[in-house]
C-alpha cells in the first residue's frame, strides 16, 4: 500500500510537527508514505468564500501530484472533506473523480482502512477532544449530537489506546469553534466569541490539552488561549497518537 501524504498549506507552514507525526505514525503502522512536493492547497479557502471558479489550477496540481497513490491521507478533516466533495480536473476528469474516493483524513484512515486494534503511545494528560464540524458532520468521524442514532467517536476510539490519557467530557460536545475560514475575519466578533466559548468549555472541564483532527480549529482555539495567556495547549491528534515516553 502506497500512501501520498497531503500536508495542507497552513499545516506545512505553521504546524510541521503535525505533518511529521502523521508521517511517522503511518510508517510505524507499516505503511509506505511519500510526500509529493508539488502539492500546495486543497482550494477550500477560495471555494468557501464563493470563488470555487478560481480553484481549477489548484485542483489540477492536486490531481497530478496524487493520482499515482493507492490512498491520499491528510491530517485535516476540513481539507479532506473539501477534496472529497469538490475535486475536479478538466485535464483528467476520471483521475480526479477516482481520487475523490481515495482521500482520507488520518483518523478515518486508521479506523476504516488500516482498522487498527491497538497502538503504542503514551500521553499522561487530561485531554479535551474538539469535534471539528467538517470532520464530524462531513466525514462522520463521530456521531452528531443532533441525530437520533447510535453514538460512536473514531477519534476517541483511537485516543483510548493511548496509555495514561484521560479524556474529559464537555458541556457542548460538538459545537463549532467559529473559525470558518474567512469567516474568522469577516465576522470577527462572532467568530472570536465562538472561539472563546469553545475554549472555556474545555478549560472549565479541566483540559490540559485540546486535540482534534483539524488544525484550523485548533489554530483558532490556540489563538484565543495564547491571548488569554492560558497554560492549556492545543495538539493535533497525530502527535498524541505518536507520542512516546
Amino acid at each position: 500500500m502506497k500512501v501520498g501524504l497531503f500536508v495542507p498549506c497552513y499545516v506545512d507552514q505553521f504546524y510541521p510537527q503535525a505533518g511529521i507525526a502523521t508521517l511517522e505514525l503511518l510508517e510505524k503502522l507499516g505503511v509506505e508514505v511519500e510526500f509529493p512536493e508539488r502539492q500546495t492547497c486543497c482550494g477550500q479557502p477560495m471555494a468557501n468564500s464563493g470563488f470555487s471558479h478560481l480553484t481549477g489550477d489548484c485542483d489540477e496540481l492536486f490531481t497530478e501530484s496524487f493520482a499515482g497513490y493507492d490512498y491520499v491521507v491528510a491530517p485535516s478533516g476540513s481539507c479532506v472533506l473539501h477534496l472529497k466533495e469538490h475535486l475536479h480536473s478538466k485535464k483528467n476528469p476520471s483521475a480526479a473523480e477516482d481520487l475523490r474516493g481515495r482521500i482520507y483524513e488520518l483518523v478515518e484512515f486508521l479506523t476504516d482502512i488500516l482498522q487498527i486494534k491497538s497502538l503504542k503511545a503514551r500521553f499522561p494528560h487530561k485531554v479535551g477532544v474538539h469535534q471539528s464540524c467538517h470532520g464530524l458532520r462531513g466525514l462522520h468521524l463521530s456521531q452528531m449530537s443532533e441525530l437520533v442514532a447510535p453514538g460512536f467517536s473514531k477519534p476517541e476510539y483511537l485516543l483510548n489506546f493511548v496509555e495514561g490519557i484521560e479524556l474529559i467530557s464537555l458541556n457542548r460536545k460538538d459545537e463549532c469553534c467559529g473559525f470558518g475560514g474567512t469567516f474568522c475575519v469577516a465576522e470577527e466578533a462572532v467568530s472570536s466569541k465562538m472561539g472563546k466559548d469553545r475554549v472555556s468549555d474545555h478549560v472549565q472541564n479541566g483540559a490540559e490539552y485540546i486535540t482534534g483532527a483539524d488544525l484550523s480549529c485548533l489554530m483558532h482555539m490556540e489563538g484565543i488561549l495564547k491571548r488569554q495567556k492560558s497554560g492549556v495547549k492545543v495538539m493535533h491528534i497525530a502527535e498524541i497518537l505518536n507520542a512516546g515516553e
Partner: protein
Amino acid sequence: MVKEETQQQHKGLAEHSGLADIFNRDEQRVNWHDETLWFVRSKRDKAAHSLPEWELLRETASQIKHNVLSDLDTYLQQFEEQALINGVTVHWAADAREHNQIVHSILKKHEINRMVKSKSMLTEECHLNEYLKEHGVEVIDTDLGERIVQLAEEPPSHIVLPCIHKKKEEIGELFHTHLGTAAGESDPQVLTEAARQHLRESFLTRRLALTGVNFAVAETGEFVVCTNEGNADMGSHLADVHIASMGIEKIIPRRKDLGIFLRLLARSATGQPITTYSSHFRKPRAGQEMHIILVDNGRTVQLGREDFRNSLKCIRCGACMNTCPVYRRSGGHSYHNAIAGPIGSILAPNLDMKAYADLPFASTLCGSCSNVCPVKIDIHDQLYKWRQVLVKEGHVSPVKAMGMKVMAFTFAMPRFFAFAGKAGRVVMKYLPFVVSNKLNPWYKEREMPKPPKESFREWYKRERR
C-alpha cells in the same frame, strides 16, 4: 445609542457582520442569549431522542415535501377547489403588494379599521402591518411575543420566539408604558396576566382576524394553525371575518400527512410534544366569512432554482436558529430580514441578492442546521452554493475578489508557493485570516501561531531525501 445604530443599519446598507459586532459589545448579554437558545436546542434534542422513529419521521416528511414541490400546481388547484366547496373565498397574490391590497380590500368591504392578527411570518415578509398603518388600519398582534416587539416598534428576532432577544426587565418597562403595569414589575407571570387582560379586550372588540397557516391540506381544503397561547382561535372564532394568509409552499397532500408533520413541528421548535392547539379550519362558522390568500412573492422563482428549491420545504420551526452558533451569538436582528438565521440566509437572497448578499457568508458552514431540520433541508450546502452564485453575480467587494485571485495564483504555482513560504510564510501573506497585519481583525482577540523554524516541506527535504 446601540438601538439607534441598529435601526440605522436596518434602514441603510445593513451587513450582518456590522450588526453582529454591535450585538457583541455586551458580552454578558450575548452569553444570556446564547444560553437561552441553547436551552431550547437541548429541549429539542430531548424530545427527538425520546422517539426512536425520529429519523424515519424526518425522512418521510422530507419526501412528502419533495412530492409537494414536484406537483405543486396540481395540489394548489385541488386545494382551491376543495376550499371553494367548503365555502371559503380563495385569493391569489403574486407578490407582497398584492397580498396587502387583498387584505385591505376585505377590510374596506366590511368597513373595518381595527383588526387582530396571530403569528404569521408571511405578513412580516410582506410588511403588512406597515402597509395597513399607512392606510389607517390598526393591527394588534396577539401572540404575546409579537405584541411585545410590536410595542417596542421592532421586528421579531426569531420566527417562533419573536422577543427572545428581550430581557424581562425591558418587557416590564414596555408594559409599564403601554399597559400600565407597575413600574419595575418584571415577573413573567404578572406581565403575561396583564397582556392577557389587554388582549382579551382586543379579541372581544375586533371584527376581523388574520392568522397564518402552518399546513394546508390539498385533499380537504382545510388549513391547520398551531399555537400555544390560543390566540389564533380566540381571534378567528370571535371575528366576523377570518383571513388566513399562506405561502403556496404550505400545501401538503393529505390530511393523514399531518400525522407526520405535527409530530415533528413542535418537538423541533421548542421540544414540546405538540403545541397546545392544532386547529383545523375547514369551513367558516355559520354567519362568518373566511378568506384564504395564496401568496407567491418569489416562491415560484426559488422553485426554479435547482440548487435552492428545497428551501421551500421549510415548515418554519426555527430549530436551525436555535442550534446555529452564529445566530445565538449575533441575534435575529443582525440578519436584517423577516426570517433570520440559517433558513433566512438561504431564503433572503432569492428575494434580493444585492440586499442580502452578506447573509450566506454569516455562517461557518458547521452543518448543525441541516441536522436539526425536520424536513432535511440541506441548509449549509445551500449557503455554500449561494456564495458561489453571489460572487459570480458580482455581489462581493472587488478587494476581496483580487485577494482571492492572488491566492489562487500562488497555490497554483508550487515553486512560488515553496519560495514564498520560505520568504515569510505564504499563508500569512495570502490566507485572508492570517494576513500579518495588526489591523487584521484576527488579532483583536487572538494570537497567530509562532512560525516554526522550518516548514514541513523543508523538514522533509532535509530528513527524507
